[in-house]
């Protein structure tokens, strides 16, 4: 396998170089045959990367410990699922995964973009990126590096990675990161050949949507993993690698809004292009942070010289991007008659806020490195900084999310907007008053809660108005709603995403502010009360599994209405001599009872950390709604021209009626 895998990597490098050479010569000589050869090099390259990936999977599954990567990340006792997911459980394998995902996107792009005028430039950028990754794999991070004498058994997978959420987290994240490469290539191509009519940016949209969707999933899986595995009771710690995934998510969200303005009237071209370039740069930065181990992080499990390669690549792409932007100065401009009370203005403000948020996260993430570089001391930037900076941004974004849907393009009638917002705003105020009456005194909670209800109100009202319009044509409500969403997927998919965001924000706010916790040492049969729960420690047991010893403490939680048994565990991995925890969680819509086993003494007394995390379920539900909304928006539209016109008429905001 080492020979086949290494051959596949070298061959992929040869094909990438060949494709680059053919493409450059083809462009210079205007030779269609050479350009076609360059295009075909992309799926060819992807094929060799797939062969390398298949070889690695085979080596993993057959426990071929003559491959160093296999010996370092798996063991004979490792379950099959984690033996396969060990593919991305180490540095070299995860880089190969990066390349594999790029191969999938590249092969798809070579087919999907072939009718796009100037597509060869896009292929060249993709091939250059492919070449860089293959070169890095071949010379610095070859996952097929051989061990002359294989050990009888491997070291096993990092215990923290032996979790279904972590099995899914890296592929989702990489599908998001790498997905930014195609839009980046389109943006670069549009800057090199700026005569285009905006088709380049429009072509980027579905790729960014897919990328955004996968980044959302990746962030969700990572948060869930952090919550159920790390045992600290939270789901987001502003860890540098979490931030690395959040930054391109923020900028791609900005793109998905600005492209709507650009598509409508051709404005904001430079800004929209810059967002694509920035999203890609942040994706590479994210990979650099993860791979280089330059920042202290639970994710940065791999220290490798590959960081330098990424830094150089990041420097080159960023410099080239800025240079191209400055050289071509794409038309920026806004519509002359655009008012501040318009959808364009709302999208622009949303873009500024999202980019400010990304910049704030970037500063907080990189500051420790810069400070260490200058002063020699490591200064950590923790959650207080991020929370303080992000809170005003989130509040302003919520205001825009509430107001934006009822604004018309170009200009809105203030009275019509006021009329449409009155009811949702009143609902928000009532929610805040209700919260205060229930004893909530935290001003941030009351404000965020009120804004969430405000946003929910406008979203529900938008659906209600659209559905009412369709019901006027004789549709029953469910059919009207489905028809509504089907005919304006971007818009209503976006509203579902907005709804998901506010559900998630409600969960984040409640679980951040109202968590209660205690630490207790109990003998079997003893009880402790925490909030609405009474928790009884039932006893402990221990047993052996493949490659691990498990110690579990069982508790029963009584909440007045019923009882639930939970088990908190310590997992001791033999092959790696490491211990991890498995948290016991009882999840309801109201709250999570979160039980962590701290220690267990020989007389079976156990020390527990117990937490009640309110509304964490809302966070996951909100994230799922975001994904559903993203899928709706990303689904390809199947519309006939006349139907499209009808759909556009449906999509006109009611506020626009006031302008006409």
């Amino acid at each position, binding site marked *: 396998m*080492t*020979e*086949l895998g*290494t*051959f596949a*990597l*070298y*061959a992929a*490098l*040869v*094909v990438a*170089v*060949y494709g680059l*050479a*053919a493409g450059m*010569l083809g462009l210079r*000589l205007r*030779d269609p*045959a*050479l350009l076609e*050869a360059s295009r075909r090099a992309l799926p060819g390259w992807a094929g060799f990367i797939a062969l390398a990936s298949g070889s690695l999977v085979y080596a993993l599954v057959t426990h071929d410990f*003559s491959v160093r990567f296999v010996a370092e990340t798996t063991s*004979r006792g490792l379950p099959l699922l984690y033996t396969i997911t060990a593919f991305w459980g180490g540095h070299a394998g995860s880089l190969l995964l990066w390349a594999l995902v790029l191969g999938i996107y590249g092969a798809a792009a070579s087919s999907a973009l072939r009718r796009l005028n100037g597509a060869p430039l896009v292929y060249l950028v993709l091939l250059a990126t492919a070449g860089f990754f293959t070169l890095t794999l071949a010379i610095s991070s070859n996952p097929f590096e*051989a061990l*002359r*004498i*294989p*050990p*009888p*058994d491997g070291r096993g997978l990092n215990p923290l990675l032996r979790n279904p959420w972590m099995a899914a987290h890296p592929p989702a994240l990489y599908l998001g990161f790498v997905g930014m490469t195609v839009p980046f290539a389109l943006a670069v191509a549009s800057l090199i050949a700026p005569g285009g009519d905006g088709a380049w940016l429009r072509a980027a949209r579905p790729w960014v949507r897919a990328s955004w969707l996968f980044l959302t999933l990746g962030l969700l899986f990572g948060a869930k993993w952090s919550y159920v595995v790390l045992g600290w009771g939270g789901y987001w710690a502003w860890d540098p690698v979490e931030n690395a995934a959040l930054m391109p998510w923020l900028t791609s969200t900005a793109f998905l809004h600005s492209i709507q303005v650009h598509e409508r009237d051709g404005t904001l071209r430079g800004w929209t292009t810059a967002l694509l370039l920035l999203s890609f740069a942040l994706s590479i930065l994210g990979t650099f942070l993860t791979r280089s181990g330059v920042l202290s992080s639970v994710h940065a499990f791999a220290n490798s010289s590959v960081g330098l390669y990424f830094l150089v690549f990041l420097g080159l792409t960023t410099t080239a991007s800025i240079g191209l932007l400055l050289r071509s100065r794409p038309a920026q401009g806004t519509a002359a008659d655009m008012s501040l009370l318009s959808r364009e203005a709302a999208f622009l403000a949303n873009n500024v806020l999202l980019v400010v948020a990304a910049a704030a996260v970037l500063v907080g993430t990189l500051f420790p490195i810069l400070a260490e570089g200058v002063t020699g001391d490591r200064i950590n930037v923790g959650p207080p900084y991020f929370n303080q900076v992000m809170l005003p941004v989130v509040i302003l974004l919520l205001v825009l999310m509430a107001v934006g849907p009822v604004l018309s393009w170009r200009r809105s009638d203030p009275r019509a907007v006021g009329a449409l917002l009155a009811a949702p705003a009143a609902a928000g105020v009532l929610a805040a008053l209700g919260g205060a009456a229930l004893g909530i005194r935290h001003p941030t909670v009351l404000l965020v809660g009120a804004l969430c209800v405000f946003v929910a109100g406008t979203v529900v009202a938008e659906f209600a108005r659209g559905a009412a319009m369709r019901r006027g044509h004789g549709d029953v409500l469910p059919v009207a709603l489905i028809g509504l969403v089907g005919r304006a997927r971007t818009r209503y998919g976006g509203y579902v995403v907005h709804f998901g965001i506010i559900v998630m924000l409600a969960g984040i706010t409640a679980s951040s502010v109202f968590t209660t916790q205690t630490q207790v040492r109990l003998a079997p049969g003893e009880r402790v009360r925490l909030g609405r729960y009474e928790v009884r420690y039932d006893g402990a047991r221990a047993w052996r599994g493949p490659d691990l010893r498990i110690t579990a403490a069982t508790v029963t939680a009584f909440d007045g209405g019923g009882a639930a048994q939970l088990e908190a565990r310590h997992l001791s991995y033999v092959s790696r001599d490491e211990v991890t925890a498995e948290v016991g969680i009882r999840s309801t819509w109201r709250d999570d009872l979160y039980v962590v086993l701290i220690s267990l003494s020989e007389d079976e007394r156990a020390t527990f950390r117990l937490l009640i995390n309110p509304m964490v379920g809302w966070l996951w539900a909100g994230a799922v709604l975001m994904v559903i909304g993203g899928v709706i928006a990303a689904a390809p539209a199947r519309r006939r021209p006349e139907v499209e016109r009808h759909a556009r008429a449906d999509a006109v905001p009611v506020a626009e009626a006031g302008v006409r």
Partner: protein
Amino acid sequence: MIPVIAGVAVLILAAVPAGAAPPAAVPRETDPSIGLLLLAIEARRDHVRVSEALRLSNPGAPRDLELTVGLPEAAVYLTFHRGVVDPVRTTDGFTTRLRLPGGLSEIVYSYAVPSGTSATLVRSFLLRVQRLEVVVRGRGAGLRADRGRAAEPLVIGGETLSRWEVSALDARVPVTIVLDHLPASRPWMPLAGAGGLAVVLSAGLTARLLRRARSREETSAV
């Protein structure tokens, strides 16, 4: 996890009747000796995995024995499979304290040694070896030693294993076992394959450019 070859060693050891060793020529004595030493060698790419199964013979009363076993200098991944309690790894092998019952007892361990297309193993033991048997698993692998003679190949599970036998090896007397035609990696293969692909693709590109130049010349000539 017992590697396959250690399993083969145990299998062969079990198949040899206790009465088969020592041969009649061995004088009676009370000191323990190795009645049968089986070296089962598995030829793998770039290394051989050696399993040594020692059938210890103690004609006297039960006794404790401080056993020291020297290993080849490059031996790695020493693994104990049977009979060894609390071994201590030393720079040149390992030591262990055994409780020898009267009669026969067994210990089995294995290790790996790097190899090229050939390998030489020099083995000597602090106890007298009444019979040494070497078995090699690996397609086409050759086996010879500076003492003893080749024996009839062994067929296990449809697979033919080369054999070599040495009788009455005195304590500390080395026996040199030479293995050849061993499988070795070919690190040049991936490079050669990719190089071949590069040549083919470059040739295609050059041919296209030449064809293009020729057609331009023809066009300008017309």
